[in-house]
């Protein structure tokens, strides 16, 4: 990385920091929040991606309003616990997650972590483009045009030239995830039952926790906790230039993101519950079929909004996941990796960002590729690769040389280990359900 490139990156970041300092000195708290939020909301709404919304749709349509609503809320609490650590890591170290893993654990372990990230990112990106194609297909947009449009949106990073502007544009898109709330309202749910399910976790899934229910449970966990989120948020916090003074705002940002994402996820479950009430077998539904099947219950407007939500979810996640891949690549290869650096100064960073999106989009266009199988399993695979990622995260969060007084407290460690155990045990239960015929909880 040349000195001139570093200066250019720092110069852009300094402008953002001066705005923050002025807001802080003048006690403009709302402006301060506006300036400092971003990575947390983006990562949480970004994780409400196309396969996640499909997973929530499957939960709502197969089990209705009940156990899965509070369960999804719980998974977002766990996501907050994991992502809060990345806020501290990014604000204290001012560098990305991959960089820290390579520096502290060496190339051997770093390569494993990167292997997990690249594998899950590429698979997840494929499913984002499945969502983009399915959502666009509802409006009669051809697959090729939809894929090109998706790659075009990801490529916006090339022209904005500033992290701040990129973050604001992507945030605006990400708020589109809340489109599932009016869709839920259009389904005229029994709001008393919705409130009751959050309080009692009932009714439990009909038929108990068999293999298919466990896959859905795992998919819902994978819809909120995945490796790319760790790499993305730490990279974004570092690129945004947050400092140790901003940790509290970073936590607020992440909590608000978790809350918004929970609302959108719960809305998706509520919106698809009519399919359960009308005994429609939605177990084999693809993304597009949900929108069409819901038409009799939420009308054409509701269906169109649902399809738009899937399209938007795919577009936002394609953007954030591509960016997380590019951050990790730049950190590992020690090349310029900032959205504050123009494309001509960081060609490798932007090339990876766009290339991975193009490859994923291209795979979706291959005739006969088993897209639905990938969509169903991608969240499951994401969960299964989480335990080592949480292991690295917790070790780094307790690394006194990096974190100093910001290292995790006993309470935060207990919560973090709890998330790691939960994810690991969920994976073991899933494995048992696959290996042992007839296994149920």
């Amino acid at each position, binding site marked *: 990385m040349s000195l001139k490139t570093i*200066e250019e990156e*720092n*110069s852009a*970041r*300094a*402008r953002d*920091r*001066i705005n923050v*300092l*002025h807001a*802080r*000195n003048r006690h403009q708290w709302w402006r301060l929040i506006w300036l400092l939020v971003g990575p947390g909301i983006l990562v949480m709404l970004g994780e409400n991606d196309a396969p996640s919304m499909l997973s929530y749709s499957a939960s709502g349509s197969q089990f209705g309003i009940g156990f899965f609503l509070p369960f999804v809320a719980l998974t977002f609490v766990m996501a907050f616990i994991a992502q809060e650590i990345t806020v501290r890591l990014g604000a*204290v*170290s*001012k*560098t990305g997650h991959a*960089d*820290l893993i390579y*520096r*502290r*654990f*060496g190339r051997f*372990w770093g390569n*494993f972590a990167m292997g*997990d990230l690249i594998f899950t990112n590429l698979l997840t990106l494929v499913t984002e483009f499945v969502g983009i194609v399915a959502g666009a297909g509802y409006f009669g947009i051809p697959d090729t045009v939809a894929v090109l449009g998706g790659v075009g949106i990801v490529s916006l990073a090339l022209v904005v030239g500033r992290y701040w502007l990129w973050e604001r544009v992507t945030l605006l898109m990400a708020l589109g995830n809340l489109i599932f709330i009016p869709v839920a309202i259009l389904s005229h749910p029994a709001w008393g039952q919705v409130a009751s399910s959050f309080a009692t976790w009932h009714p439990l899934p009909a038929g108990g926790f068999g293999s298919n229910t466990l*896959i859905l449970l795992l998919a819902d966990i994978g819809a909120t906790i995945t490796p790319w989120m760790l790499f993305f948020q730490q990279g974004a916090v570092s690129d945004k*230039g947050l*400092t*140790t003074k901003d940790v509290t705002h970073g936590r607020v940002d992440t909590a608000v993101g978790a809350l918004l994402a929970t609302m959108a996820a719960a809305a998706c479950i509520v919106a698809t519950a009519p399919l359960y009430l009308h005994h429609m077998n939605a177990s084999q539904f693809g993304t597009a079929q949900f929108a069409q099947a819901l038409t009799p219950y939420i009308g054409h407007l509701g269906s169109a909004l649902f399809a738009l939500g899937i399209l938007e979810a795919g577009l936002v996640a394609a953007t954030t996941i591509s960016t997380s891949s590019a951050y990790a690549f730049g950190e590992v290869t020690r090349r310029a990796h900032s959205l504050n650096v123009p494309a001509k100064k960081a060609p490798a960073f932007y090339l990876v960002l766009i290339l991975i999106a193009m490859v994923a989009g291209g795979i979706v266009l291959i005739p006969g590729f*088993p897209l639905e*199988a990938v969509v169903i*399993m991608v969240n*499951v*695979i994401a969960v*299964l*690769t989480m*335990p*080592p990622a949480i*292991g690295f995260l917790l*070790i780094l969060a307790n*690394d006194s*040389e*990096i974190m100093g007084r910001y290292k995790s407290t006993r309470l935060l460690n207990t919560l973090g280990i709890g998330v790691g155990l939960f994810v*690991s045990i969920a*994976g073991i239960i*899933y*494995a048992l359900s*696959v*290996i042992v015929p007839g296994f149920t909880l």
Partner: protein
Amino acid sequence: MVRAESTVNLSDLSDLDAQKIWVDEVLAEHRASQVQIEQLGLLKLSTGLKGLMWLLRLYVIFMVVVVIVNVFQQTH
């Protein structure tokens, strides 16, 4: 950092690229962190921690096999 908070003037924002010294002041904490990170060496992992990391790695490899078996079961 404190000095930067008191000396920076909004009206001079447009000249920031030329004001390298301001950039240095505003990003003082960033530069200190960069220096600290550059000096980091490998973390000394205890035997227990290494064992845990290998266990988690084997967990992922095992689970990938399980997923392949599961996909095979579902498609046949």
